[in-house]
């Protein structure tokens, strides 16, 4: 339709513009602004960012470089989360999607695996606490059953192991997402492609790499981007388990931002952390955003 009057669209658009400006756009700009102010609202340039990096809770790579146990600082922790969680949940999601294509009851299994995505993350945190408990948790019982009883402990009580334990736990939670996206992606691949390849004598492996993987590219982009964003924004789980402890070994950026803002009341530092977090999310989402806008 080709309508030149702008009165009508405005009426349709007014609530959107109003709500977005007041509750999203202005706050975003304001947060950036606050990140350059000190407690007395004086402009202090990048001082808050420098302060942020000087905090052990945010940036403490010396432990990592020296090969010691965490804490390494929230920024590093989120980074480790990405490095471990992304490939694992992508792999398991794809594996499950492939496996469950022709399995009887596959739909039920998919729903079960996806449950982790549907529950609140505070409950997810409670589930993980329970699962990793020394006596009452199934992870330790599993270790005992396979003969590794010496390794049992409450995994979330130790700085050395809490981050790893949480990351693996979030793989369990998030794999459902990549599985569902890949399942949809797989269904969208025309069967004829496989038929033709089979006739041409291509092996299973070849068919997978030459047809499946490239056709799954859009799905992979979505999975990678959404997973990256999720890994950056982890909050509820860490809060419920040890509030970033012990000794800051599970601190993440979103939690640190909250603590700085609402416990320590240093809004400037908190705004700096939030801005840093957003720059990272923008950066990681840039490619997907670019593709979305191209349409």
């Amino acid at each position, binding site marked *: 339709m080709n309508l030149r009057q702008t009165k009508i669209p405005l009426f*349709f658009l007014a609530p959107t513009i109003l709500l*977005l400006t007041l509750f*999203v756009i202005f706050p*975003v700009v304001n947060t950036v602004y606050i990140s350059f102010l000190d407690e007395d609202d004086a402009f202090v340039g990048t001082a808050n960012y420098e302060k942020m990096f000087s905090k052990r809770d945010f940036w403490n790579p010396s432990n990592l470089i020296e090969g010691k146990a965490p804490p390494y600082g929230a920024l590093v922790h989120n980074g480790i989360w990405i490095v471990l969680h992304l490939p694992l949940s992508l792999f398991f999601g794809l594996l499950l999607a492939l496996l469950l294509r022709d399995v009887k009851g596959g739909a039920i299994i998919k729903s079960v695996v996806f449950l982790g995505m*549907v529950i609140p993350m505070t409950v997810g945190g*409670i589930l993980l606490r329970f699962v990793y408990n020394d006596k009452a*948790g199934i992870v330790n019982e599993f270790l005992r059953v396979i003969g590794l009883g010496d390794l049992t402990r409450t995994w979330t009580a130790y700085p050395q192991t809490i981050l790893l334990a949480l990351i693996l736990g979030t793989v369990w939670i998030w794999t459902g997402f990549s599985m569902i996206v890949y399942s949809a992606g797989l269904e969208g691949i025309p069967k004829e492609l496989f038929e033709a390849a089979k006739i041409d004598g291509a092996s299973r492996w070849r068919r997978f790499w030459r047809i499946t993987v490239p056709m799954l590219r859009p799905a992979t982009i979505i999975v990678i981007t*959404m997973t990256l964003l999720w890994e950056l924004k982890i909050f509820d789980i860490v809060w419920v388990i040890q509030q970033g402890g012990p000794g800051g070994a599970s601190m993440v950026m979103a939690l640190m931002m*909250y603590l700085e803002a609402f416990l320590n009341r240093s809004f400037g530092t908190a705004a700096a952390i939030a801005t840093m977090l957003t720059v990272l999310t923008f950066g990681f989402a840039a490619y997907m955003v670019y593709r979305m*806008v191209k349409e």
Partner: protein
Amino acid sequence: MKLKLPELKLSKLKPSEIVARLLKVKKTTILVHVLAWGLSFVWILPFLGVFMASIRPLPEILNGWWNFEVFNPNLEGYIGAWNHPSAPLSTALVNSIIVTIPSTALPILVAALGAYSFSRFRFPTRDFLFFVLVLLQTIPQQMVIIPLFKIMSDIGLWNNYLGLVLVHTAFALPWQIFFLRNFFSVLPVEIEEAARIDGASYLKIFYRIVLPLTLPALASLTALQFVWVWNDFFFAIVLISSPEMKLATQAVAAMPGRYNINWNVVSAASILVMLIPIAIYALMQRYYVKGLVAGAVKG
């Protein structure tokens, strides 16, 4: 009923081959099924554990819920969670409903109107505004919360459900508008044009013709938004503080902290809080998955 067993030379076959022959399927299919069901069992174990913890007395849980020699289930966990002195689920669940329903209905309404504009009308700055919209989808909650806290306090909507609902509504708009605009763009315009020629107003065209055709998309948005709002914790803890107003996610999170309760109560509370979003997902699964997969950029 008489079973006719096929001839098998059992001595020469491995078990998996025996099963395969019996079921007349390929060996790999057996393996795949075993692997799939095995993984499924692993995946559901934590849920099974928390369910067991919610119905059994504390000593049984402490010794491992997988032991069934002593098994005296009871409902004390649920009663304790429901009536908990500082975080009762009886009120928390209701509070969550009070917030979630408007936070689901309102954005859909606003987003539909907005998305329609982007799709059907041409106006200055349209493409730029849409670009901003796409960008806004990636903003984390942390980026807006400080000013929102201050704004809400200033206009008296802090610790007030209306404030929280408005925030959830605004936050939902970017992705919902993006989603709906894409939906509208493949909706044929002929019917609308015909109605326009007949003299119908835009509003009438919108809710008489367009909305009914959009129902599947709206269903997706409803499912996704409901679950997202119900599960939200961050906006809730900053914007709602009175104990009697706390939402379900806050109640559950408060338990293993200062007011730690025994495992059976915490587990029962967890089950109660997660039942609702699971139910929504189960009832609206098709729409939920469609929405998620169709590039719904919701974190």
